[in-house]
């Protein structure tokens, strides 16, 4: 086996590309879970955003507007989730799953309505083909901004900002307070439900960005269930990253790069004819994630999970 073709710059690039949509959604999920809302609708948020991004980019021929539409669609689903979980106080596990099923149905339906008459599969111009006159010609900065690997910097900046938001700002303090002790926060005149609403909108925006990146930054087309379970992986990554945005980003990258690695090992070892069955490689990202999670949990001993995760806040009712 020729290892030099397996491990290299392109491994990192394709790993980052596989990881980015999941990473952004997972960092978003960290925010709302820190506020005490378990958002299992993440897959639905991402999926809705993928279609919104695709439709906007298709009709306006502007990939950047696709990204914006994806973010807005994510925020809209975040608002729906907030309406169900924060204001109606329905069961968060159930309403999350409902959102995913709803999104799967509505996106497939809308896509068929919008593009059903076309004889070929519609496509959009990918982000890296878009050249803003002047900007792309700036030395160094131009290529970085318009290179696909620039996604890594975007995600890193986002994760760092979310970390700063959570741990270095007043808003972050409020988010963590309503996730750990909502009754105490309430007695200190914090509007618990309002903070949770904002946390869900931030989560929606980031999940939407993740969905948009998948379409506009990578594959340029849309198909039913195009997110293929990335939202669920992102929910698991939040636990993996112990509700810390930077660790969550690290986990997402680890998962993505291992996934890219297993595809490359499969290719290099001759696929099905290899001595080691390819299923072993396919399981690699999941096994590695599980091992790191167990090791990290055992090592730190203390649970990092927000105390009231998944429990709606009712004023004057003790939990």
């Amino acid at each position, binding site marked *: 086996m020729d290892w030099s073709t397996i491990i290299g710059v*392109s491994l990192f690039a394709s790993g980052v590309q596989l990881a980015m949509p999941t990473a952004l959604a997972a960092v978003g999920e960290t925010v709302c879970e820190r506020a005490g809302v378990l958002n299992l609708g993440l897959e639905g948020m991402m999926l809705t955003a993928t279609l919104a991004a695709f439709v906007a980019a298709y009709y306006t021929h502007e990939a950047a507007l696709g990204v914006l539409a994806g973010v807005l669609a994510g925020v809209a689903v975040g608002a729906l989730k907030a309406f169900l979980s924060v204001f109606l106080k329905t069961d968060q596990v159930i309403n999350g799953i409902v959102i995913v099923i709803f999104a799967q149905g509505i996106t497939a339906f809308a896509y*068929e309505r919008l593009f059903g008459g076309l004889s*070929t599969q519609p496509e959009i111009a990918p982000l890296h083909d878009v050249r803003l006159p002047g900007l792309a010609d700036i030395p160094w900065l131009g290529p970085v901004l318009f290179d696909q690997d620039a996604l890594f910097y975007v995600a890193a900046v986002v994760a760092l900002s979310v970390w700063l938001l959570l741990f270095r700002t007043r808003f972050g303090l409020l988010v963590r307070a309503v996730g750990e002790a909502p009754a105490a926060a309430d007695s200190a005149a914090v509007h618990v439900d309002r903070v949770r609403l904002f946390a869900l909108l931030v989560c929606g925006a980031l999940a939407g960005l993740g969905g948009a990146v998948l379409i506009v930054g990578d*594959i340029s087309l849309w*198909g039913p269930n195009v997110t293929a379970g990335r939202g669920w992986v992102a929910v698991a990554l939040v636990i993996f990253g112990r509700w810390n945005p930077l660790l969550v980003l690290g986990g997402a990258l680890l998962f993505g790069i291992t996934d890219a690695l297993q595809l490359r090992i*499969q290719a290099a070892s001759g696929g099905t004819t290899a001595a080691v069955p390819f299923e072993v490689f396919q399981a690699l990202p999941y096994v590695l994630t599980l091992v790191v999670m167990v090791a990290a949990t055992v090592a730190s001993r203390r649970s990092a999970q927000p105390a009231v995760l998944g429990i709606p806040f009712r004023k004057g009712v003790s939990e």
Partner: protein
Amino acid sequence: MRSTALRVTVLLAATLALAGTALAGSGGAQQAKLEVALVLPCPTNDGSWCQQGYVAAKRLQKEGVIDLKFTSNAPQDTPGASQVIQRYVAGGSQLVLAHSAWQDAAFSAAKRFPNAPIVYAGGGKVGGNVSTYEEPIYQPAYLAGMLAAGITKTGVIGGLAAFDIPLCHAQMEAFKLGAKRVKKSIRQITTYIGDWNDVAKGKSAALAAADQGADVFVVCGGGPASGLISAAKERNLSIFGYVGNQNGLAPKHMVGSLVYNLYPVFKAIVADVQAGKYKGKVYDLGLRSFTFALNPKYSAGKIPPAVMKQMKATQQAILAGKFKVPYIPK
């Protein structure tokens, strides 16, 4: 006032409709149309699996052979799909074409409606009034492999598949055997990504194989196929389309498409039902139902004329029944 006008309109429309039916009925000397229901697991415009089924059924409807009702995006699970099939049978459909690997759903529906002709896709068990139609994609894949051997500059070709199921496995093996028939030294890299829908992962897998030198690809699965198209444009790869005629999606890169043509299949099933000859059996039309469509606009590589000639001769031999493509399901 308005409601009166509405009532009059409705009455008028109803009268007209009645008159129309009566007129049509009076000329009804020819054979009655067969009430056919088509159940699809995906949208009718997916450019692939469901579109092929839909287009074939629509054509029979246009020809006046059948009356078509259809459901797209039907539930994939056995109880869900079985419900949809049963609803059509109860509603008077004389033939249900369940266009997915719905063997269990077909048999569960047949338990309640043993006399209804129910046909599912992909091959498997048959019995009673339950039939299936084969999906012999390995046959055109063999022809594609022959061309791939002529096109590749590196001597490495690629196979990209969703899952290691008999359908995909046989296709990948046939592609390899076809290539080796033209050039013994060809090496094939086959990657299984483990998902039918994941476009991004399909693309990533294709790029990984391309890094290993693969420059001509065949694919099994809708998601991987879309990913492969995207990868082909990025790396100037030569590829083959999957299930639908995808030549137009990447005109420069598509050497040709492995096209599932369901029209002759559905036509044969409908004819059997209409003639009263229908019983549970396997419909397999080989290379007539899974055809090989060359792309005249292909320009990413060169197909040596000798290889093209050899491929066409093999195609004729298969159609004439003189050559059998090896079927290696695992």
